[in-house]
C-alpha cells in the first residue's frame, strides 16, 4: 500500500515536471511550425470522419430516445432546443473528447513509446535536436487547438442528426428546426463548454506524450504506454468535466 501511494506521488511529480517543461519550451525558439501543422493535420483532419459519424449518431439517437418522454408531457416542440443544449453543453464535448482520447492519446503514446524503444528519440537528441520541443510541444499544442474545433464540428453534425431524427416520426422544416435551436442557445451555453474542451485537448496530448516519452525499454512498454494513455486521458476528461461543471455552476 505504501509503495502504491509512493508510486502515485512520484508519477504526479514527474507529470508536473513534464507539464512545466512544456510551458518552458513553448516560448523558446526555434519553433517547429512544420511539425506542428503536420500534427494538426493528423489530429484534426484524420479524426474528422470518426467525429462526423459519431456526432451524427449522437444527435439522431438522443432525439429518437427523448421523443417519447417529451410526447407524454406534450412538450414535443422542446425537442430541438433540448437536444441541441444537451449536445453543446455536455454530450458532444465529452463524447468527442473520449473518442479523441481513444484515437489520439493512444496513437501518440504508442508512437512516442516506439520511438523511445527504438532509440529514435536518442538519435534526435544526439543530432542536436530538442526532442521535447519537436515531438511533445507540437503534439500537445495540436491537440489543444484541434479538439475544440472537432467538438464544435460535432455540435453542428449532432444538431443536424437531431433534425433527421425528429423527421423520422414528426415533420419540421430545416429552417424552423434551426431557428428553434438558435433561439434557445445562449452565450453561456456555448462558452463554458468550449473553454473546457481546450483543457480536454491539452490533457489528451499531455498524457499521450508523457506516457510515450517515459516508456521503458522493451516492446511490451509500447502497448502499456498506449493503454495507460487512453485510460488516464479518459479519466482526466471526466475529472475536468466535473470541475468545469462545478465552476460554471458557481459563477453562472
Amino acid at each position, binding site marked *: 500500500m505504501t509503495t502504491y501511494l509512493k508510486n502515485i506521488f512520484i508519477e504526479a511529480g514527474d507529470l508536473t515536471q513534464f507539464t512545466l517543461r512544456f510551458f518552458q519550451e513553448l516560448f523558446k525558439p526555434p519553433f517547429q511550425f512544420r511539425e506542428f501543422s503536420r500534427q494538426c493535420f493528423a489530429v484534426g483532419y484524420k479524426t474528422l470522419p470518426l467525429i462526423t459519424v459519431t456526432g451524427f449518431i449522437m444527435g439522431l439517437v438522443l432525439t429518437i430516445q427523448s421523443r417519447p418522454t417529451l410526447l407524454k408531457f406534450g412538450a414535443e416542440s422542446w425537442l430541438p432546443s433540448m437536444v441541441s443544449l444537451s449536445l453543446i453543453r455536455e454530450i458532444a464535448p465529452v463524447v468527442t473528447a473520449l473518442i479523441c482520447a481513444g484515437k489520439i492519446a493512444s496513437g501518440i503514446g504508442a*508512437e512516442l513509446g*516506439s*520511438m523511445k524503444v*527504438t*532509440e*529514435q528519440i*536518442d*538519435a*534526435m*537528441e*544526439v*543530432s*542536436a*535536436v*530538442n526532442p521535447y520541443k519537436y515531438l511533445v510541444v507540437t503534439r500537445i499544442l495540436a491537440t489543444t487547438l484541434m479538439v475544440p474545433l472537432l467538438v464544435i464540428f460535432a455540435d453542428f453534425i449532432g444538431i443536424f442528426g437531431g433534425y433527421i431524427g425528429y423527421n423520422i416520426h414528426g415533420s419540421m422544416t430545416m429552417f424552423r428546426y434551426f431557428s428553434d435551436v438558435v433561439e434557445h442557445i445562449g452565450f453561456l451555453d456555448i462558452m463554458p463548454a468550449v473553454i473546457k474542451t481546450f483543457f480536454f485537448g491539452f490533457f489528451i496530448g499531455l498524457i499521450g506524450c508523457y506516457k510515450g516519452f517515459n516508456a521503458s525499454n522493451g516492446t511490451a512498454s509500447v502497448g502499456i504506454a498506449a493503454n495507460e494513455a487512453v485510460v488516464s486521458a479518459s479519466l482526466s476528461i471526466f475529472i475536468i468535466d466535473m470541475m468545469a461543471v462545478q465552476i460554471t455552476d458557481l459563477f453562472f
Partner: protein
Amino acid sequence: MKTEPIIAIKDLYKSFGENEILKGINLTVNKGEDLVILGRSGSGKSVAIKCLVGLIKADKGEIKVFGTDITTLNNNELNDIRVNIGFMFQNGALYDSMSVRQNLIFALKHHSRDLSETDIETQILEALDNVGLEESIDKMPSELSGGMKKRIALARTIITKPEIILYDEPTSGLDTITSREISELILSVQKKYKTSSIIITHDMACAKMTGNRILILKDGVFNAEGTYAELEKSDDEWVRSFFI
C-alpha cells in the same frame, strides 16, 4: 608536437541503482584514431559512449570532448558539441515516419540551417552514394532490410560531416557478408572524411578491419589495451578468448 586528444575520459563512474556499470574508466582518443571497445554483453560499452554524448549522465568523473568537459554543460551548450559528433545506433534508429530522403534532410537541416535546396539535394545524394543506396532515396525504413537500414543510418551520420563517429555495434544482427560490407564502409568513411571513431562491437572481423587500437572492458574498467595483433597474443587467457 603533441596535440590534445579529442576525447578524454577520466575516472568515469556510472551506476543504475545498486548495479555499478562503470567503475572509473579512463580513455583518450586522438585525432584520426579509430578505437574499438570490446567487452561482454552488459559490460557497459554502450553506457560509456552514451555518456560521451550526454545521453546518459555520468555519476562521477570528467568527460572532455574537443577540450570541453561536457559533464558541466547545459543542454544548449551540449548541442554545440554534439554537432561535431556522429552516432550510429545499434538498430539504426531511423525515423520510421520519414522516408530515407526525409531522414537525411532532418539531420542536415537541423545541423546547418542556411543550406539551399540544391546544396541539401547534393549532400543527400553524396551521402547515399557513399553507402551505395541512391536508389532507396524515396523508400520508407520499413521497406529496407537490416543491412540497408544500417547503411542509411551511416549515411545519416556522415551527412553532417562530424569529426568523430561513435558506432554502437554497427554489424550486430547481420550476416557475415553484410557485416563485412558495413565494416568496409566504416573504413572508407574513416579514410574519406578523416574522422576519428569509437567502435563498439562483438564482431572481431569488424574490430580487426576498422580499429587501430583496441580496449577491452571488464568489470567496469578497461582490462586490456593494444593493437589487434598484440591482444591476440596476450598472456591473459580471458583476453585471448575474444580472438578465438
